[in-house]
């Protein structure tokens, strides 16, 4: 687990806190985008399962998820 930079911002303006949150999100997004496609695919499969679960919980018909193994 990477250290949370927000934990060090004990005193900050709302704008500084928000900027720190957005910066951290952007860093996480960039690290994810830079992964090899095969690793990103594993994240994609997790994401697909989360979306499917949310759709089912909401009573929305959901297509089948893709197999984890070929």
């Amino acid at each position, binding site marked *: 687990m990477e250290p949370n930079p927000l934990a060090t911002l004990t005193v900050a303006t709302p704008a500084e806190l928000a900027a720190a949150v957005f910066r951290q999100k952007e860093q996480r997004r960039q690290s994810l*985008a830079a992964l090899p496609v095969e690793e*990103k*695919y594993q994240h*994609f499969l997790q994401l697909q399962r989360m*979306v*499917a679960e949310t759709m089912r919980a909401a009573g929305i018909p959901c*297509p089948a998820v893709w*197999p984890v193994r070929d």
Partner: protein
Amino acid sequence: MESTLKVLNDLETQGVLTRYAIGGAMALLFHTEPVATFDLNIFCFIPESGPLITLAPLYDALKAGGHTIDAEHVVIAGVPVQFIPAYNPLVIEALSESQERTFGETPTRVLRLEHLLAIMLQTGRPKDWQRAAMVSASAPFDEIQLLDILNRHGLTETWNRIRSPH
């Protein structure tokens, strides 16, 4: 998905498809962060002998290979694949200039990010425009190439509208 791509490569080797490339949300996986989708969009050239084409030989070959037809999809190794014949000059160009990539140990082709963005703009559904705005703000693309594509396919105004909506 690797098994699915192997089947697509076999279809190309057999001449059932002339050329294919991954498009849609799954193509974005090769360029940026993952986005959710439930089908694999495959843009393809189909062998033709006149102005009309038919998907029947493709579907016959897939059925003979034991794959299931399900509405507009063919389920190949558990992945619902949607075959989209190249239907206009932009898509023809995108497919012709698609990039060679590998997934695992399997070679495949993927539409370039600039063409994906242009196709999202041209398709014009709200979710495509939203995705185009999101992807263009976060993924590295070649702006000169994109502007050239947009200009040649009459999409510059649409691009300006989604970049500066107000």
